[in-house]
């Protein structure tokens, strides 16, 4: 599997080594930290940030507590996780809108995804009942204005442009226009630029002076490498940004830039772009990002998606069944339906803790298999669905012919069901709180 190989799996690997040993020696801590260092570097976390991070973890890990504790490995994971979370800002940061119209200015390097993100923000704010206008201040890139207009249209937002003219003037006029059209939020799309281009950085400073944005959001490509620190600190120094947006997180990047950017600017990451469609935007959750990096998957995001796709009632039922360990094939069937609503198997597996360890092959992710599985379950009697243990050879034969499948396929389904059950059992959190993968 291409997704979430990398840091997640590496750390899992390191920690699984430690798990077997129980106790940690200082040497082991150092070994683990050395590998964490390499893993973080391969994940594109900036070199200096890694160094800092490792030192912090080391300080905490070499304390008495860890060396004498029996669950030392868990404690290292905990420390690494906590450090990652705190490095990325701790809690969820929201948009701070003030002024009428509230002005949001986007900025960033070329190709980071500003224009697309303007549309997504507009879409999001529209859903919250805001009246949004997008203003085209990128007068340099060919057809950028046209692109913004189209994006505004699909977000059902107003758009404002004055062709290829002075971006500072366009921004100022956009405020007037927004007021006239009683828009309460104005989003300024600016041209991508290099942080070392003095003239263009000055232009942004001038736009800020003229429009007093309540949010100045730096858009950063999640695939950015070591240079993320230079870019982010330059933008921050000149513009005093209010936050960061991370784009293209739907790729297989390990996303170390998130850590780097946060560490050098101290500014919160507010949103993530997770696809090319207008609705593909999510708030940034530092704890989830940390667990994603650590290989604990993005269980919480999944739950949220599940809640949108599955009704609250379904979810409660599933949680209860899981708690009672009565997860049946009917529940499995319900899951399949939710899976397609949540954007397919591969996306979900990517967010699942340690999915890599289960060695699920690409072929098993085939969506057409889901159809087969559904057909099989639908050919079962209610008793069989409720208690799959009774499905022995003769029943398997009947089910196979009833669903137009083979006995092997029925066996596969039952195996997958068992695996899923096992997987879900592992997701049970502490204190009876259940964290559902689907």
């Amino acid at each position: 599997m291409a997704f979430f190989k990398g840091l997640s799996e590496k750390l899992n690997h390191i920690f699984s080594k430690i798990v077997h040993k129980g106790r940690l020696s200082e040497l082991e801590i150092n070994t683990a930290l050395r590998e964490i260092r390499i893993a973080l570097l391969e994940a594109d976390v900036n070199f200096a940030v890694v160094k800092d991070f490792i030192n912090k973890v080391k300080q905490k890990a070499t304390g008495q507590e860890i060396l004498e504790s029996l669950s030392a490995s868990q404690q290292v994971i905990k420390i690494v996780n906590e450090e990652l979370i705190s490095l990325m800002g701790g809690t969820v940061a929201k948009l701070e809108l003030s002024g009428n119209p509230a002005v949001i200015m986007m900025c960033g390097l070329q190709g980071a995804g500003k224009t697309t993100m303007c549309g997504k923000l507009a879409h999001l704010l529209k859903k919250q009942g805001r009246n949004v206008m997008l203003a085209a201040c990128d007068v340099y890139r060919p057809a950028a204005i046209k692109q913004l207009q189209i994006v505004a249209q699909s977000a059902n937002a107003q758009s404002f442009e004055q062709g290829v003219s002075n971006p500072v003037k366009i921004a100022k006029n956009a405020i007037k226009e927004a007021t006239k059209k009683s828009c309460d939020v104005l989003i300024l799309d600016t041209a991508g630029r290099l942080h070392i281009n003095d003239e263009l950085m000055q232009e942004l400073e001038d736009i800020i002076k003229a429009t007093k944005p309540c949010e100045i959001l730096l858009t950063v490509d999640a695939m950015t490498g070591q240079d993320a620190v230079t870019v982010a600190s330059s933008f921050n120094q000149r513009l005093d940004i209010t936050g960061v947006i991370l784009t293209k997180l739907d790729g297989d990047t390990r996303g170390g830039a998130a850590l780097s950017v946060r560490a050098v600017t101290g500014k919160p990451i507010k949103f993530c772009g997770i696809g090319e469609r207008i609705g593909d935007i999510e708030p940034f959750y530092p704890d989830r990002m940390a667990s994603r990096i650590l290989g604990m998957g993005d269980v919480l995001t999944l739950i949220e998606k599940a809640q949108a796709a599955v009704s609250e009632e379904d979810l409660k039922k599933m949680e209860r069944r899981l708690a009672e360990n009565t997860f049946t094939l009917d529940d499995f069937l319900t899951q399949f339906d939710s899976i397609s609503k949540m954007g397919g198997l591969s996306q979900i597996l990517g967010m699942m803790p340690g999915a890599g360890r289960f060695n699920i092959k690409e072929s098993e992710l085939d969506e057409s298999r889901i159809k087969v599985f559904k057909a099989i379950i639908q050919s079962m009697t209610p008793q069989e669905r409720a208690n799959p243990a009774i499905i022995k050879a003769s029943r398997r034969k009947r089910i196979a012919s009833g669903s137009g499948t083979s006995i092997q396929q029925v066996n596969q389904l039952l195996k997958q069901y068992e695996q899923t059950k096992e997987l879900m059992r592992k997701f049970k959190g502490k204190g009876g709180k259940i964290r559902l993968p689907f």
Partner: protein
Amino acid sequence: MSFFKKIWEALKKTRESIGYKLSQLFGGKVLDDDFYDELEAILLSSDMGAEATLDILDRLKDETDSRKIKDRDGVLRALKAIMIEILEETPIPQITTPAVITVVGVNGVGKTTAVGKLAKYFSAQKLNVLIAAADTFRAAASEQLSVWAQRAKVKIVRQDQGADAASVVYDAIQSAKAKDMDILLIDTAGRLHNKKNLMEELKKIVRISEREFDQANHLRFLVLDATTGQNAISQADIFNEAVSLDGIILTKLDGTAKGGVALAIAKRLALPVMFVGVGEGIDDLIEFDAKEFVESMF
């Protein structure tokens, strides 16, 4: 501006930081573990990646040990030679005409800009160039490419947004054949390499162009943003698997990104860097030269 001067300008930052750090390091006489640790740090922070960095350092150690190199200049020369060797391992493919060049890559790396620049580059060699706007997905993509076609003074084949990309390619090929074009440049939509269906669409485009124009020399260039970190390796890997790449265009080297990832890719995938992008102007595309690239990093 000469190639050397341009890349020298473009890589000034790289040179300043790496060169400075190196000169400090090599200033010391003793080549001990600390020295190699620091060297590792420098190479890593230029986005070379762990694998390429460790490999280069191993080779360097072997060299300096066996040849008993202990002076700063000697080590530098050895290091540069290793880096150049890696970059030159795979020869740059010859572009014979008629050629169909499909430009691929993830979102926002500079594909459309590269197509515009390449159109000018080939026209300047008195070749007849046609470009195809096969990004029918992103808003205003074909309008953007049309502007580049005008700038490069070449013709463009396009359809409306939402049209089938493969059908644009089909049209463009027929027109390229009918008009006896030397070079057909195909701009494709940005796509993340882990999206299966989008990669399938790309394969289809390539299949169609090969089928419809079998006398042509078909080439696939991957555009990589020099700002990208280790994910560039994954991009190169998966795009290569999907459409068998012939070379790389490394863009945005006019920023502060070091472009070290080119080495990692050259090493792992034997893919040559063909061109580098050093700005947003139509002439800001230069042929890659490993020696000068490496030279300008120190």
